[in-house]
């Protein structure tokens, strides 16, 4: 075998383990789901194999599913926006702090050492009827009766922001950290105030990080299942909860498959549009 042939083969050898895992754990199950979505749940309980469009028809026409899908996208969008607004200053602060950058990054990663479910449930101890906030307010005499603050859309968003903020901060941080600090100095020397310099130089150069963080937060928020279960009320179900409902409660695997594919397709299309219009390729070209 010539050196060229060996070199051409090498990437494939290195990629094989990962490709095998992706194929077995992602592609194959996905194919199963695709096939399942065209089957039909019979009244007797056993599924009827075949090519039926009933599930898809139900998923696409029932306004119940459509409303929850739109609500899911809305919650994901609000969460992403909140993460961006809260995360950017934090990322900026970390990237500009000199000696203790590492400590701050470790602190940022610290929440990942605790289970996501535990972290989400901790809000019950804070906002619950006998939680910290209510107890404190009663003790201070601000209120007489505990207020019900949990189990609404706001707490769902709160829980999601709590979960997703570190992803946003890390993505923006990586972007900001790669920006030469001389650029801000150069901008100020040319007459720009710090704020003008930030808007003209730092912000545009950190957009790729902001865009990546935004995409990650949006997709993770839109696919979330646990947060609305723990922190949401009966009317705050998100789309992933419908999939759970169909598959586990109603044992309707074909419908659940169609619903989960629908979410996958919607998110996939959104990601494509996002890439197309945020001009990430263009930005990458400018940055080289």
């Amino acid at each position, binding site marked *: 075998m010539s050196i060229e042939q060996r070199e051409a083969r090498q990437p494939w050898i290195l990629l094989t383990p990962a490709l095998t895992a992706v194929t077995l754990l992602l592609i194959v199950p996905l194919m199963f789901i695709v096939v399942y979505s065209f089957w039909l749940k019979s009244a007797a309980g056993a599924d009827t194999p075949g090519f039926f469009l009933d599930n898809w028809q139900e998923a696409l026409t029932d306004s119940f599913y459509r409303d929850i899908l739109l609500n899911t996208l809305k919650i994901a969008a609000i969460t992403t926006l909140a993460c961006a607004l809260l995360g950017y200053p934090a990322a900026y602060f970390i990237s500009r702090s000199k000696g203790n950058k590492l400590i701050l990054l470790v602190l940022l990663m610290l929440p990942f050492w605790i289970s996501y479910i535990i972290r989400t449930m901790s809000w019950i101890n804070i906002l619950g009827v006998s939680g910290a906030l209510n107890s404190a307010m009663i003790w201070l005499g601000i209120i007489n009766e505990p207020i019900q603050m949990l189990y609404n859309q706001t707490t769902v968003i709160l829980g999601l922001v709590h979960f997703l903020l570190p992803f946003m901060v890390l993505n923006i941080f990586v972007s900001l950290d790669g920006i030469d600090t001389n650029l801000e100095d150069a901008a100020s020397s040319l007459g720009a105030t*710090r704020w003008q310099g930030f808007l003209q130089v730092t912000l545009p150069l950190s957009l790729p990080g902001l865009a990546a963080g935004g995409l990650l937060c949006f997709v993770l928020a839109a696919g979330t299942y646990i947060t609305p279960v723990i922190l949401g009320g009966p009317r705050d179900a998100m789309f992933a909860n419908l999939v759970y409902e169909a598959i586990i409660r109603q044992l309707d695997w074909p419908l659940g498959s169609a619903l989960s594919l629908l979410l996958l397709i919607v998110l996939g299309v959104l990601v494509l549009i996002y890439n197309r219009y945020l001009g990430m390729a263009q930005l990458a070209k*400018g940055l080289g």
Partner: protein
Amino acid sequence: MSAVSLTQIVKRFGNFTAVYPMSLEISEGSFVTLLGPSGCGKTTTLRMIAGLLDPTEGEIAIKGKRVNDVPIHKRNLGLVFQNYALFPHKTVAENVAFGLNYRNTAKADVTRKVAEALDLVQLPDLGARYPKELSGGQQQRIALARAIVIEPDVLLLDEPLSALDANLREDMRVELKRIQQRIGVTTVFVTHDQTEALAMSDQIIVMSKGRVEQVGAPEDVYNSPATEFVAQFLGASNLLTAQCTDVSGGEMALELPGFPKIVIPRERAADGLGPGPVRLVIRAEKLHLKPLDAADDGRLSVEAIVENVDYQGQSARYFLRVGAHQLQAINMIEDHPFATGAKVSLRFRARDCAALPVESKP
């Protein structure tokens, strides 16, 4: 009125003093170089003039106006960095126009001034390109154009040539000096490269460990170093401890074992130097190697042994031994360099020697 005036400025970072009390007057239109090894405080001084650092003590004035409390964006300075610091997401023309946009310049004027600046740095056709599409030398020219297009009161250059290849660096050196003379802007240049400093400056400020060692024209600093540090930092010098035996009639007599008596003019000795131990300084290129049998030419002569030869083509650096002393000499090569182990007659003139006080090492 000085373009820049520093009065007793000090910069401390915690317990570390980066710049000890320093005063400096930079005259309008001059090219002044802060020269010294890394960590000598030259960049810290430049950053204080720029407004990127606040002096711990002292006063900074630009064109007679105190600027200690004036933020950098209101100081009207041109700043050029070693790594160019061009805005990567803006075209060359947008980079150059950046400062003009904060100066209420009319749109037509912006276009014209950008074109003029690009002409001045001889890159008139690159306006539409992005910085990463340019070579290092081109990027540094654009950085210079961006800094001078705003007609700054002072141009501050922080090692602008250090990131360039050796050949390009020499071209840029000439180019930079040409542009500076053409527009006549007061320039403060920071470098650790003595060649750049000697070639470009009207005045050199040699710094070491946060202190100014000497201020003077390139020739003064080179020929009459004020301290041992300056003697060793600029070019190659020999430093020997000698005894001053007599000071009289505008002359100073120096003796050191193995050498003939050296009588130097009084102005070649540091002020206040009297009988006792002194440091004798002589530059490596002022020591001339001759064959042992060469005729007496009126210069002082001492026999030396060549211990090592560093051949450099047109010249050679010789490492010599005279008794207990080790010396360096740099000579042009006429036919062949002297060989290692050769005995030679080392010739020098007394007026090329200088005397400095013996420094007590801290």
